């Protein structure tokens, strides 16, 4: 690519800046940073761009939104509610929707962007999980990402509560119930958060501060840290021809990646704007202002909170009464226990996996999901659990739309929530192992070309064609899990580490991970084995040799 000469004026500015900041060297290095090309590497970008859209549209909303529980009588443009007493928070949301120019569009853009933001974080996280991109040295970025996801949930819940409509009020009511269910300190926490009895006058202004200041501030800082770490550590890449642990193959930052990213930003922006313009979201005027006496069927939280709603809905009505106190297990377990069950493994996974496999190597080439069957299967059972909980949160809508009995759905989900993840685990693991076998076979005998040939003897055979170099690198890309440090030393004395309780758990788990392993494919039978926990990557000489074999 030839660069056209820089216009003089620009050059002058450039020199001015460079003289003061030495930016040329910085830019020179950074503009040549390389980004691998794969669509799944753009999922995180979606989250970034929608976050930017949220910040901009949210700032617009703050100009008119009035976070106050002070009661007023409505007399704005939405005549149907004339004369209804409501909080200023609700009234100003109606005003943004009906009287502020572009207000409804901005509200809708803000809300659609919020949904897309969290959905994008989800799929981005799944990509990172299933490809093992969280492994050393990227554990810290995984932690940051998981924190961002959880903060996103919280931020969304806070925003959902701000307009003080019927649905947001019911969300608050649930939050109150959850706080109250916490033993000993629950009531205190509730009074602390709400500043008195539910709903009180403090909650909306407090949520507002959290929603527009504190949490976005933390999130922004974390996003920046996330990207700085990414920048420093460079991107992972999928296995393929020429891709090594020591290089990154892709597009340089400037110009190709910048153009691509810019175009993509406008696409994300365009989709959000289209949704904001043409698809109605959170029509608070239909819900009406919150009154503690009212509830509505079909009241659900936004999708990202749906799984908690689901866990509350299907959990049996258990409670313990002792010493004059009631411990509401039916709230405590589904609303605090289940999130713990989901978030704890999510957060500690990189460390857990490293501990179990004993794999302390640096990884820059990602795993294909099939090559880590236990991890992939575990992830799929997590996705299944989440998905089922999510559906359970909409069980009344499902029952109404699909004409199935409501209690039936509750019982269905109770069983499915236990069996579903187990089945998902088993099935996924089988599929992964099957795919691995196919890879191994293809690597050693080539793939079935579908061409049938008749031999001079009259026999029919199917021609096996050798894989291309690229496909073959992919097929043999599996890295074996290293063996744990020998549990028994040369004299047959068990090592102290492996005798402890944790040591035994660890070796059990390790065994569980490796026991069904399929040996790494041997490139068309040249006898190359890789059983010593080393890299399956071939040395230069070997690669040459294989090329020759191919001719």
């Amino acid at each position: 690519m030839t660069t056209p000469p820089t216009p003089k004026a620009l050059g002058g500015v450039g020199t001015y800046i460079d003289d003061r900041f030495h930016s040329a060297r910085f830019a020179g290095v950074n503009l040549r940073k390389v980004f691998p090309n794969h669509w799944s590497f753009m999922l995180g970008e979606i989250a970034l761009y929608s976050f930017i859209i949220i910040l901009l549209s949210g700032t617009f909303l703050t100009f008119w939104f009035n976070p106050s529980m002070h009661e007023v009588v409505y007399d704005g443009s939405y005549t149907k509610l004339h004369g209804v007493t409501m909080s200023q928070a609700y009234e100003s949301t109606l005003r943004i929707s009906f009287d502020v120019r572009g207000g409804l569009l901005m509200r809708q853009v803000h809300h659609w962007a919020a949904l897309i933001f969290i959905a994008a974080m989800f799929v981005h996280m799944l990509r990172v999980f299933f490809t093992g991109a969280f492994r050393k040295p990227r554990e810290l970025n995984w932690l940051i990402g998981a924190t961002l996801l959880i903060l996103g949930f919280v931020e969304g819940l806070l925003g959902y509560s701000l307009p003080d409509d019927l649905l947001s009020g019911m969300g608050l009511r649930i939050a109150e119930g959850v706080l109250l269910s916490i033993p000993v300190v629950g009531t205190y926490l509730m009074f602390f958060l709400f500043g008195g009895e539910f709903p009180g006058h403090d909650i909306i202004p407090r949520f507002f501060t959290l929603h527009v200041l504190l949490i976005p501030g933390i999130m922004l800082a974390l996003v920046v840290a996330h990207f700085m770490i990414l920048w420093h550590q460079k991107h992972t890449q999928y296995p393929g021809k020429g891709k090594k642990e020591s290089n990154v193959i892709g597009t340089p930052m400037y110009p190709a990646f910048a153009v691509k990213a810019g175009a993509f930003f406008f696409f994300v922006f365009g989709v959000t704007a289209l949704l904001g313009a043409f698809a109605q979201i959170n029509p608070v005027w239909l819900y009406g202002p919150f009154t503690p006496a009212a509830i509505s069927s079909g009241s659900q939280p936004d999708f990202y909170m749906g799984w908690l709603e689901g866990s509350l809905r299907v959990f049996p009505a258990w409670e313990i009464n002792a010493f004059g106190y009631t411990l509401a297990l039916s709230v405590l377990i589904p609303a605090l226990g289940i999130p713990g069950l989901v978030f704890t493994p999510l957060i500690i996974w990189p460390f857990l996996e490293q501990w179990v496999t004993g794999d302390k190597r640096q990884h820059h080439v990602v795993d294909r999901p099939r090559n880590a069957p236990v991890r992939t299967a575990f992830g799929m059972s997590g996705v299944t659990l989440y998905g089922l909980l999510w559906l359970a949160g909409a069980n009344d809508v499902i029952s109404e739309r699909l004409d199935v009995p409501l209690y039936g759905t509750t019982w269905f989900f109770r069983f499915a929530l236990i069996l579903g993840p187990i089945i998902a685990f088993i099935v996924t693991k089988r599929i992964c192992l099957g795919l691995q076998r196919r890879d191994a076979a293809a690597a050693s005998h080539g793939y079935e070309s579908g061409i049938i040939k008749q031999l001079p003897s009259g026999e029919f055979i199917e021609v096996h064609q050798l894989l291309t170099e690229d496909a073959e690198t992919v097929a043999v890309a599996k890295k074996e899990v290293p063996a744990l440090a020998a549990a028994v030393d040369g004299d047959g004395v068990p090592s102290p580490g492996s005798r402890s309780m944790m040591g035994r758990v660890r070796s059990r788990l390790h065994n569980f991970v490796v026991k069904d392993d399929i040996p790494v494919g041997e490139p068309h039978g040249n006898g190359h084995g890789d059983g010593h926990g080393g890299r399956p990557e071939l040395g230069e000489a070997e690669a040459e040799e294989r090329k020759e074999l191919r001719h």
Partner: protein
Amino acid sequence: MLLALAVIGVVYAALSPETGRAEATVSASVKDVTEGKRLFDQSCASCHGLNAEGTKTGPSLIGVGAAAVDFQVGTGRMPAANPGAQMPRKRPVFDDQQTKALAAYVASLGGGPAIPSKEQVDPATGDAALGQSLFITNCAQCHNFAGGGGALTGGKKAPDLHETTPSHIYSAMITGPQAMPVFNDTTVTPEQKRAIIAYIVETREEPNPGGFGLDRLGPVSEGLVGWVVGLGLIVAAAVWITAKQREND
């Protein structure tokens, strides 16, 4: 609004104007009652008994009133085809004249609420803002905030209120069909009933200012659209951009 008025007009053109206020006074002609009895024996007696005293397959209709018959027959629920968890709404079997006759006959057996008058159910004179708060506190838990309907326990559901005529809304409130509670005139006054009707009718007729209403289902349909349309389109774009770029490499 105009549409609603037109609907009311059609319904009431056929109904006798003398059906009075919601009291147990029946001023139907003897002819109506005889005609009603004949239709009843034909289509209803098998379940409700020859004298509407009730059988194993249908409850007694003595004292349910003209409003109950008008609602049940006018919304096509009766005559029931086969008893299930709930009689579905369907195309009415009888025309307005016949419905009126059946109502007159059942009312002659022992009073009960009468069919409401035109003014009682006129959405134009109801206070929709008052109706909003009454609807949210009394009806939304079953029928959903926008009258979209919802599931109830035991395989039953509260139907949507998108098509129901103002008169049938009123009758539903005073007779409490099936799993729905009765809202008599002390819990919800006739004035408040008219306010509720005004709210239901205005809400279902107002356009969606924000674009497609997504069936006014709330967060469930929004979540679905966010994933499928929003994220779906964007991811498709990501795949497309990368593919294009590969071609050019």
